[in-house]
């Protein structure tokens, strides 16, 4: 069963991953949170794209990258999001 994302420590990460296309937007109707598995997977994709070790956790290298100045456009364009399996 998916575990909800701990909001307190990962809000910045989730917002960033969502903004740049690694995570789909949380459902605004149900207010459903992202699952931690989805966030972990998105972090891995982001780490792979950035060329840093794929740890799947927001380690120092990942947080440093998240705080770097950058272009506002998403890295993963909406139509390229991985399909979610039911």
């Amino acid at each position, binding site marked *: 069963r998916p575990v909800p994302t701990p909001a307190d420590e990962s809000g910045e990460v989730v917002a960033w991953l969502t903004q740049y296309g690694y995570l789909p937007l949380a459902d605004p109707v149900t207010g459903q949170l992202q699952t931690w598995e989805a966030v972990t997977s998105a972090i891995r994709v982001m780490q792979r794209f950035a060329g840093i070790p794929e740890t799947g956790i927001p380690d120092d290298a990942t947080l440093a990258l998240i705080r770097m100045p*950058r272009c*506002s456009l998403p890295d993963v364009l909406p139509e390229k999001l991985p399909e979610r399996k039911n």
Partner: protein
Amino acid sequence: GRPGPKRRKSRGRRSAGLAWTKRNISWKVKTYPREARLSRETIRALTHYALKVWSEAAPLTFHEVGGPSADVSVEFLRLDHQDGYPFDGPGGMVAHAFFPGDPQRAGHVHFDSDEDWTFRSPGDYGTDLFAVAVHEFGHSLGLAHSPSKRSIMRPYYQGPVGDPLQYQLQADDRVDIQRLYGSRVLHSTEKPEASSLLPDPPSLPRDFPALRSEKEFPDRCSSSLDAVAQIRGETFFFKGQYFWRLTHGRHLTSLRPALSAAFWRGLPRSLGKVDAVYERHTDHRILFFSGPLYWVFKDNGVEEGYPRPVTDFGLPQGGVDAAFSWPHDRKTYFFKGGLQWSYDEAAGRMDEGSPTPTALGGQLPTPVDDMLSGSDGEVYAFKGRQYWKLEWHSLKLEPGYPRSIARDWLDCTGELSPPPSAPTGAKLQPDWRGPPLEVERCVCPS
């Protein structure tokens, strides 16, 4: 499939935003940062060079426009500016640009006005405008972000990328842009310009090209001409990279010549000279010929798909010496050496029997520099610093010629300096042609 390194080699991976169907793209800096250490001229120059990076890799030309509409419009905005990508003050998001496939926002390029935009500044200070601009224009042309650490399309700002005059795309970026637009074929390979548009660092400001010193221009009173044309009733005299313009009343609009590539938008700045120019009577397009290529202009903007080889007309690959459109028979005449071609503009083909020995043979020195058909159908031939007038119906020489071009057309009075004699070692006249236009020799498939 999932995005990531496994897809890196897939074809078209980074062409996410479609591409421009046109190849001649206008640009404009619409707004500037309120408080910036960079001058407006520097920002414009950096924009020019950032676009040039892409046009050196693909058959694209960019030209700055003054009017309100431009294909690529650059703006410095702050915080929420109502496009769904709000800026966030210094750091964080520094810029974004919309893909050509975006129906409403294609060509919009936004920089965060709150960043400390810099140029030629140490890497850890400010945000280098040129580096970011090259990246954003990549989006404007259809490229998405790249995971490659060496790519300019990497999403993270990684500091300055070096001298804008020397900067070249990495191989990956070059391949990606060429997947969208093809490679530079039959287009000039513009090299860094001899005189930079970029000002020196702030402590040593230098003028924009419009303010070049007088001695850099050809002297209208002692120069021969490369081409002469009557366009919309005005007369244009071309020399090297410059031209003089005479109004309907035959008054010079300026004693100092204007830079051709700055006025005729889309003409390469590296074009050393034009051989012939004429206004086509069928549709009033203006045609420029230089070596093996020709350009077609609507007003002062180049049409899509140009330059093209002069062989389109059935002319020799080496180009022409002169051309003029003759209202008398509604034909266009091309001259090369001792030969002339008669081209039927309405039919779009060369007349049978062309080329023939020129009708000017024996009357005038050949080759002429150019020919001109005046407002009343009269014909002039120009050679060196002199011109001849020909009877409009017979093309026979009128008496009293040759006369001085400088005195009769270019408002020169008094004692005119003698024509330069043959060079004897030292170069007597500066070469106004600029660097030669380099053209890749190839067969055009279409």
